[in-house]
């Protein structure tokens, strides 16, 4: 049995309701590690070219990594992946919590869902028992409600992932929810799960995970834990969580405000992590094996609701980006999204887009059935969230995402539809941060920050600079951060607590018994990055450079307010950034990996 792995793959065909167990292929584990690496390889190899993302031919992959479920700080990241219904390209999205640990204790590194069930179903796993069960009683109910009910029915030890009405109604940014407020939120993995009529996954396991060198593993795991606890950043991160970034992001001019019209929200004083801590946070919440507990669990007296968060991204999108400055209103909007099962980032992006269209007269009360859409109107935000999740009225258009909404609304709205590759951009206004902009342009799921949070390099070497160094750092980050998603571990111990990356290769050696350097692991991450790019090139007709462009707002419209006032990245600089990036990656000028690069990375099977 492979050290570090559960050892089995569960393949669930929802159409004919068969469940097959196979041994995990050691070559797959060696060449792709786990998590997103497994997902990318399986999607490329098994999903037929041109498959409908919401059809039976698409697959939903749930993957743990070799660190998942072991006592390494933050080793609780589960990857969900599919061909994206939002973009038509590659998608993976990961969540913290406890799901991947429980999967591995039941003996599974991978669950692959195929086909479509005729009736709502959920997958029940209790060690070697795996069966599809009736989910009709839960269909139509919210994520948190169903998780609570399944815990009551099956037992507290079961770990649950669910979709809500958003996933059932195929909202293109529906999420998958777990642990009462953790989500795989991006690129519509929840819509794929909903399209399969799969309401939930419930898993419980009691087995051991084999470890090659237990003594060395314990030593390294303990040392990593101690490093986190002793870190200078621990106290801050524990107190504020990701919402601690609200203030610096606003000071950098990066806090998306009024549909990214600006990066500076003048009412930040009521949206800080400190205000949140003192007014609504009731406790701290950690994922598996994490000594940091950056999750903040909150209660809003105003709305009488509980919610995990709001996180930085949610405060940005359901706060500043829609110009709502009451933290309790942000918390309520967060609660609605969590229960209905839609991504707060895309929801806040598309609602802000509708507000800007309304204020510019591109859409009117006729389009909204009388609902006024003005920035700062919390009630309108709440109503649109409901309408999107249930696809009612204008919500049916917005549920398709901002790219589609711009096509429907027309006018010049495409110029300020804030997406890349069809995925709504996440929480960093980047007109004075070219490295961050390049990171968004080239992220392999569309406009998302978590593949490379490169704004650090903009600040380090000068905000205006367009340099080869910045392109190189974006590429480096795009290998390091997604490597964590292959390992099944969180990156924040490194990013926020400064934990040296030097720990990971020795930890992997102790766990798996395979002697690989950090560079060896990065090489695998580069392989996965090129494979996801190849997936895009195969699935999206005409895919290339044009798909990496940011929205016109970012290269034509100077920032009107705040510390970055007057700044934007000129179109010729956008082209320069892409030239540098493609060249350094070994891709052609259209952004397609060269045959030499694919072969160097062991991707000979990829068609070009």
């Amino acid at each position, binding site marked *: 049995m492979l050290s570090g792995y559960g050892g089995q793959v569960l393949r669930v065909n929802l159409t004919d309701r068969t469940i097959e167990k196979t041994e995990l292929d050691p070559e797959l584990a060696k060449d792709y590690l786990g998590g997103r690496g497994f997902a990318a390889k399986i999607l490329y190899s098994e999903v037929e070219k041109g498959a409908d993302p919401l059809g039976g031919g698409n697959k939903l992959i749930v993957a743990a990594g070799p660190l998942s479920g072991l006592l390494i700080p933050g080793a609780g990241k589960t990857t969900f992946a599919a061909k994206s219904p939002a973009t038509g390209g590659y998608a993976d999205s990961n969540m913290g919590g406890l799901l991947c640990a429980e999967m591995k204790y039941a003996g599974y590194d991978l669950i692959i869902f195929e086909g479509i069930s005729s009736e709502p179903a959920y997958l029940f796993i209790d060690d070697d028992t795996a069966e599809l069960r009736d989910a009709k009683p839960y269909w139509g109910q919210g994520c948190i409600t169903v998780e609570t009910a399944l815990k009551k029915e099956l037992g507290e030890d079961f770990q649950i992932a669910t979709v809500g009405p958003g996933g059932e109604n195929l909202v293109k940014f529906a999420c998958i929810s777990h642990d009462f407020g953790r989500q795989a939120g991006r690129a519509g993995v929840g819509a794929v799960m909903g399209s399969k009529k799969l309401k939930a996954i419930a898993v419980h396991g009691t087995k051991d995970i084999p470890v090659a060198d237990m003594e060395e593993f314990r030593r390294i795991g303990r040392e990593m834990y101690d490093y986190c606890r002793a870190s*200078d*950043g621990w*106290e*801050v991160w524990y*107190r*504020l969580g990701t919402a*601690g*970034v609200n*203030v*610096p992001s606003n*000071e*950098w001019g990066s806090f998306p405000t009024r549909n990214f019209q600006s990066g500076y929200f003048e009412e930040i*004083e009521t949206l*800080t*992590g*400190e205000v949140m801590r003192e007014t609504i946070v009731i406790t701290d919440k950690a994922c598996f094996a994490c000594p940091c507990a950056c999750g903040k669990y909150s209660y809003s007296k105003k709305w009488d609701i509980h919610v995990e968060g709001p996180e930085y991204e949610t405060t940005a999108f359901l706060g500043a980006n829609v110009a709502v400055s009451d933290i309790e209103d942000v918390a309520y909007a967060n609660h609605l999204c969590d229960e209905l099962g839609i991504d707060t980032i895309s929801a806040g992006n598309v609602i802000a887009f509708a507000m800007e269209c309304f204020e510019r007269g591109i859409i009117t009360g006729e389009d909204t059935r009388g609902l006024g859409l003005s920035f700062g109107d919390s009630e309108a935000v709440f109503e649109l969230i409901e309408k999107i999740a249930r696809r009612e009225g204008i919500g049916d258009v917005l549920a398709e995402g901002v790219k589609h909404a711009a096509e429907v609304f027309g006018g010049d709205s495409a110029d300020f539809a804030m997406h890349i590759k069809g995925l709504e951009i996440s929480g960093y206004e980047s007109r004075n941060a070219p490295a961050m902009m390049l990171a968004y342009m080239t992220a392999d799921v569309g406009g998302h920050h978590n593949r490379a*949070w490169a*704004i*650090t*390099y903009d*600040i*380090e070497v000068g905000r205006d600079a367009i340099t080869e160094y910045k392109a190189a*750092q974006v590429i480096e*980050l795009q290998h*390091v951060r997604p490597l964590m998603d292959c390992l099944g571990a969180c990156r924040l111990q*490194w*990013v*926020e607590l*400064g934990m040296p990356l030097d720990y990971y290769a020795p930890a992997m050696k102790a766990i798996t018994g395979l002697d690989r350097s950090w560079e060896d692991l990065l090489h695998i991450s580069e392989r996965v990055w090129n494979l996801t790019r190849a997936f895009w090139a195969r699935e999206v007709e005409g895919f290339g450079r044009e798909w990496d462009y940011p929205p016109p707002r970012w290269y034509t419209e100077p920032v009107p307010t705040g510390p970055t006032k007057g700044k934007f990245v000129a179109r010729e600089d956008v082209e320069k950034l892409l030239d540098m990036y493609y060249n350094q990656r070994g891709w052609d000028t259209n952004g397609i990996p060269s045959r030499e690069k694919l072969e160097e990375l062991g991707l000979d099977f990829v068609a070009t």
Partner: protein
Amino acid sequence: MNNVQLTLVGLLKKCGPAQSPLSVESGRTVMEVITDLGLDPDLVAIVMVNGRQEFKSYRLQEGDNVKLVPMVGGG
């Protein structure tokens, strides 16, 4: 009177004075102190005063305990 204790955290230790914690004057804003120390304000991500997050416009008071926390490079 230098009655405010200021600690540089993480990478900021390499950018500011070798000595940490430092004693600085009350009555000044955190931004003024950051500038006096020759630090790039954008590199100082989070300002903690007596365990609470404050803005850089915060005016230091006697006995305050201040931590300046950087954005972590490479994040």
